[in-house]
């Protein structure tokens, strides 16, 4: 039987269409149909100036917009050879890690909702609300922030920034423990997530997975460690690695990543230097002709930007390396052999966002 989990579905995390070939309740084959959210962002970028493209990047992974903006501005800065002041680096680190926590909280909320624990949704969204308030006070917008500018940040940290962030990270471990109380040892949660959606380390590397999906299978790859950007070179943190590559391991990896993010924010707040937050820019931002690839560790995986410039004020080609698009390729391998109810859990564990997949 062919079953269509259509583009409008409460659990496909966006407009994703999955065509399942079923034998009874077991999934035999799976095909994804994407493109429902294609907005032509890369083509639009060919006709805009470099500073004008930054807001479009927020709309890619709209849940974690701050890190998207970071890829773009860092690519342009590195191509131009701009030196960003250290205070901006540290503030970027703090806010990007807050952004990672916000994205993982939303992942936890929707994943728990799909599996049935609705209360965790509301609790995680409450924590995320605190982060979004910090973003609103700092950047002026909650979700699609347009956080960074080429050369640094538009405004320095607002007056109560330290106090608000400190308050958040003081409350946060207790909340994480609450989510763990309800979920991590719950036998129903274990029955629904252990052994579901397994992918081995070799397959994960072969497909090109990145982010928690890769680390859940035991591969130690994190762009923050292997090619540090912003202020990560000065930060002391660990990478959680899973063992079996199943949904439960990815769940534990993401929870632990939230704890490590909290650790990074703590250190960065301590070490925050003074100084300006933006560098002096030329009148028109024009990177030299050539191409450049830069990637960062976004919450969903390695998000990268391949920029081809022809020396003019508008880029020649902007190519996004979308982590969710590449992670989605693993869906077929993860789902075949499982039951239909598991497909929903597996889509949740891959943590895809259609804005990134379709651009």
């Amino acid at each position, binding site marked *: 039987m062919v079953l269509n989990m259509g583009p409008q579905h*409460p659990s496909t995390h966006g407009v994703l269409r999955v065509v399942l070939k079923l034998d009874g309740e077991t999934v035999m084959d799976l095909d994804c149909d994407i493109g429902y959210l294609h907005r032509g962002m890369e083509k639009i970028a060919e006709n805009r100036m470099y500073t004008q493209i930054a807001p479009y990047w927020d709309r890619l992974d709209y849940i974690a917009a701050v890190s998207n903006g970071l890829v773009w501005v860092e690519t342009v800065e590195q191509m131009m050879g701009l030196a960003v002041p250290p205070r901006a680096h540290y503030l970027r680190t703090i806010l990007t890690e807050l952004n990672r926590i916000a994205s993982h909280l939303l992942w936890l909320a929707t994943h728990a909702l799909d599996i049935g624990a609705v209360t965790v949704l509301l609790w995680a969204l409450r924590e995320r609300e605190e982060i979004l308030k910090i973003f609103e006070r700092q950047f002026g917008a909650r979700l699609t922030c347009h956080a960074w500018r080429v050369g640094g940040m538009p405004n320095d940290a607002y007056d109560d920034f330290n106090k608000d962030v400190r308050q958040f990270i003081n409350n946060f471990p207790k909340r994480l423990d609450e989510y763990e109380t309800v979920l991590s040892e719950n036998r129903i949660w274990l029955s629904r997530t252990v052994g579901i959606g397994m992918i081995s380390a070799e397959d994960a590397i072969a497909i090109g997975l990145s982010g928690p999906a890769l680390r859940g299978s035991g591969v130690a790859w994190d762009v923050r460690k292997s090619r*540090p950007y912003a202020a990560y*070179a000065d930060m002391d943190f660990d990478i*959680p690695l899973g063992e079996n590559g199943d949904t439960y391991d990815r769940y534990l990896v993401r929870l*632990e990543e939230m704890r490590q993010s909290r650790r990074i924010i703590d250190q960065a707040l301590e070490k925050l230097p003074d100084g300006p937050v933006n560098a002096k820019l030329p009148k028109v931002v024009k990177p030299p002709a050539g191409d450049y690839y830069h990637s960062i560790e976004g919450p969903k995986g390695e998000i990268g930007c391949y920029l081809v410039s022809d020396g003019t004020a508008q880029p020649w080609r902007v190519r996004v390396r979308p982590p969710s698009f590449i992670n989605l390729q693993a869906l077929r391998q993860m789902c075949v052999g499982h039951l239909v109810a598991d497909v929903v859990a597996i889509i949740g564990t891959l943590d895809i966002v259609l804005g990134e997949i379709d651009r």
Partner: protein
Amino acid sequence: MLLFAPIDILNNLLLKVFSQETITFFIWPLIQIGLIVTLVALWVAYATYLERKISAFMQARLGPMRVGPWGLLQPIADGLKLLTKEDFIPENADRWIFFFAPYIAVASAFIVFSVIPFGPDWAVIADVNIGLLLVLAVSSVGVLALILAGWSSNSKYALLGGLRSSAQMVSYEVAMGLSLIGALMFARTLSLSGIVAAQGSDSIWYLVYQPAGFLIFLISGIAENNRAPFDLPEAESELVAGFHTEYSGMRWSLFFMAEYAAMVVVAAVATTVYLGGWYFPFVYRLETSGHHNLFVIISVLVFLVKASIILYIYFWLRWTLPRFRYDQLMDIGWKWLIPSALINIVLSGFAIFLVQALNGWRGITTIESLNRGLNLTATGKGIMIVIGVLGLFATAALLARINWRSRDFNLRVQRRNIRLVNVPQGKPAVQPQPGS
């Protein structure tokens, strides 16, 4: 008391028109039915309101607040909204069955209330001496409504959803019926009022004698009502919304009401059989001191409070636990609950045999009387409680032995297998500036 004089006045008024027989067997039951249907309908409607409020408080939010003070008029607003919706029937649906399925569901849920003892004397409509059998039988008719709804919707997904729901309900009905037999052995009667009287005269709740039975009954009751954590067939993140996909407006709300009424039925039966029903020892003194009508009214309140505690457990479980997958659900019903219900029957029978055998042996009296159910002395109760608790462990051990191959059973060992590594740092993309 003056407060209840109207009952006698009304009786006298009616005597002018009808004969006493008509009044006793026709008019008063009609009034009782009217009262109980109103009470249950209000209870069901406000159970939806309470569910929204309780779930909201558990989730650190407020729930309905706008309609009426504290949102109290929300069920009425919902009802009005549903009445004004378009009455939509799918294209090639079977019209008459589509119409009748919700009515069958609601009827089967409400008919059960005719035998449930809300209180002593006049607070039960019909004290049939096979009351418990009637409850089980009539609530099974609800499954028919599900199948008819799924079939008549002319939709592949509604049909599959309806079949899955009904398969789940039928599986758990077996466990439900079997678990009640354990308590019946103590009550020695199927009449629900008799069961309450048995608990009253023994001054004990059968929950104490039958912890396993209560647990099995409650779990199968929750699964019977398609409530979380057993609600996969109708969960929103599943592919279908179950059998009621194609229903909208008032027809859908009838299914909704039937679901909540079935919840209330299970709660009421659980209170009656395991929690002592309307009996409360301090309230009983009102009866002996002659305030009969007041006694009845307060007993009804006691019953409502106890049933509400079980309803709270329903809401609590729904909003905390994730849901089982369908195969895990059926697994639990057939491989865990039915064997434990059977083991429970065997153990209870053995326990009663033991107690009766010990009675009079070497001067131990275990049985006090056999008038209303099995009344035990303190010794007898002690023995029964010990066997009840040991029975729990024995059941668990036996089930572990039976289900040793079950995959999920083996997975429930809690472990954290995340390790934290600190890999060596690579070269940064941009060399950090001096002084940073």
